[in-house]
C-alpha cells in the first residue's frame, strides 16, 4: 500500500514537470472614477451638455448622470502605464447609445472604443472594451502611452459609474 502511494506521488510529480506551471494573469486598475467623495463633474471636463451626480442603486452609491447630447473628456495624464492591454470598464444605465473614444492628444482624431454591454434584465449593467492600440512608442522600450484623453458621448440620458481603466497582463 505504501509503495502504491509513493508510485502515485511520483507519477503526479512527473506530470506536473511535463505540463509546466499553469498560465495566469494579472490586472491592475490604473485610472478610476467611482464618483464617490467628489463633487461637480468629479474631475471630468464637460465639453457639451450637462452632468449631475446622482444616487444609483443605493443612497450610498453614486454615479454621474449625463443629459442627452453630453460630451465628457477625461484627461488620463501623460504618465499612464500599462502592460499588454488597457481595458475600459464601467457600470451604466443607458437606454440610448453611449459612445466612447480615445485620443492621443487634443488635436488627434478620435479612435472609437468598441463597447460590449453585459447581459441581464437589470437597470445597471457592466459595459467595457479594450482600448485600441495607439502607437506612440516611448524610450523605455515596449511601454506605450495608449491615449491621453477618453471621450464619452451620450445620445440619451445616461448614468455612468465605476469608470475605470484596467491594465491586463498574461503570463505562462
Amino acid at each position, binding site marked *: 500500500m505504501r509503495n502504491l502511494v509513493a508510485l502515485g506521488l511520483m507519477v503526479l510529480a512527473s506530470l506536473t514537470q511535463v505540463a509546466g506551471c499553469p498560465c495566469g494573469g494579472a490586472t491592475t486598475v490604473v485610472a478610476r472614477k467611482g464618483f464617490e467623495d467628489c463633487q461637480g463633474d468629479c474631475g471630468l471636463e464637460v465639453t457639451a451638455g450637462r452632468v449631475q451626480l446622482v444616487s*444609483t442603486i443605493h443612497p*450610498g*452609491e453614486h454615479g454621474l448622470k449625463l443629459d442627452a447630447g453630453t460630451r465628457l473628456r477625461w484627461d488620463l495624464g501623460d504618465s499612464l502605464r500599462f502592460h499588454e492591454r488597457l481595458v475600459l470598464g464601467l457600470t451604466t444605465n443607458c437606454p440610448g447609445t453611449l459612445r466612447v473614444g480615445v485620443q492621443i492628444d487634443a488635436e488627434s482624431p478620435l479612435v472609437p472604443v468598441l463597447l460590449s454591454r*453585459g447581459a441581464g434584465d*437589470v437597470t445597471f449593467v457592466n459595459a467595457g472594451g479594450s482600448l485600441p492600440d495607439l502607437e506612440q512608442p516611448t524610450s523605455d522600450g515596449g511601454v506605450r502611452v495608449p491615449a491621453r484623453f477618453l471621450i464619452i458621448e451620450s445620445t440619451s440620458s445616461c448614468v455612468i459609474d*465605476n469608470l475605470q481603466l484596467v491594465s491586463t497582463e498574461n503570463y505562462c
Partner: protein
Amino acid sequence: MRARAGVWAAALVVAGCVGAGVGMGSAWAQDVVTPWATEPAPSPAPVATTPTDPGVPMQVVPVLVQPGDPRVVPPPAPSRRRGPQVGLGLGYRVPMLSPGGKKVGEALQAYGYDEGGLGFLFETQIDLVWRYSREIDVGARAGYAMNFWDPTSGDADAAELSLDVAEVGALVRMHPSRRVPFAFQFGAGVLLATTTLRGEHDSELVPFVRAELRVVMSTARVSPWVSFGYTLASWGDALGPGVDLPLGGLGIEAGFRFGENR
C-alpha cells in the same frame, strides 16, 4: 378500599398500554396521560347506590368494575397553570431561491459584488405562544436577520453593502394532534429592512407571510426544535428601478422551546 385501588391500578395499566400502542416512544406516550393530569375532569359519577327509602340509612353496595368500564374516571388533578411557551432559535434563509433572486444577483454583480453573497440571510428569533385550544396555539414572534456583501474587486472606493432585517408578527401554530411531535405554523407581520452602504441607510417596511413545519424533539420543559419554512417578502425597487430585493425564501431554524409541554 382495596377493590378501588385495584381498579385504579387496572385503569393505569390500560392507559399505559394505549400510550405504548401509539408508537411514539415513551416520551410521547406521556401525552396520553397528560390530559388526565392537566384538564379538569367531570365530577366522579356515583359508582353504585341503592334505591333510597325515606327513613332508611343509605347503604353502599360495592360493585366490581372492570378496566374500560365508562364509569371508571380519573380523579381530578390539582389544577396547574399553563404558562406561555417561549421559543428561541437561530437559522438562515436562502433569498436567492426566491423570485427576483437572480435579478438581484445580476444587479450586485454589475456593481462588483459577489453574486453568491445573497445566498444566505442569517437570522435569530424569539416567539411566545399561548394555548388557544387543544389544537391551536397563538402568539407573536420577533426576529432579526442580517447579511452583508463584500465587493469582489479591489477598487479603492469599493465598500461593504449590508442588509439588516427586523421583523415582528403574529403566528398561529396548529397541532394535528398533541400526540405527534410536529406542528404547522403560519405567521404574518411586517419587517423593517435596511441596507447600509458607506454610512448611508435605505429602509423600507415590508409585509411578510410565512409557513413552516416545526418539529419538537421531546416533551421536556426545555426541548430542542427544528423548523423548515418559506417566507414570502420582497422589497420593491430596492436596488434600482425594477430590481426587487427578496427578503424571504426557504429557511431552516433550530432552537429550544421553554415551557410546559401540552
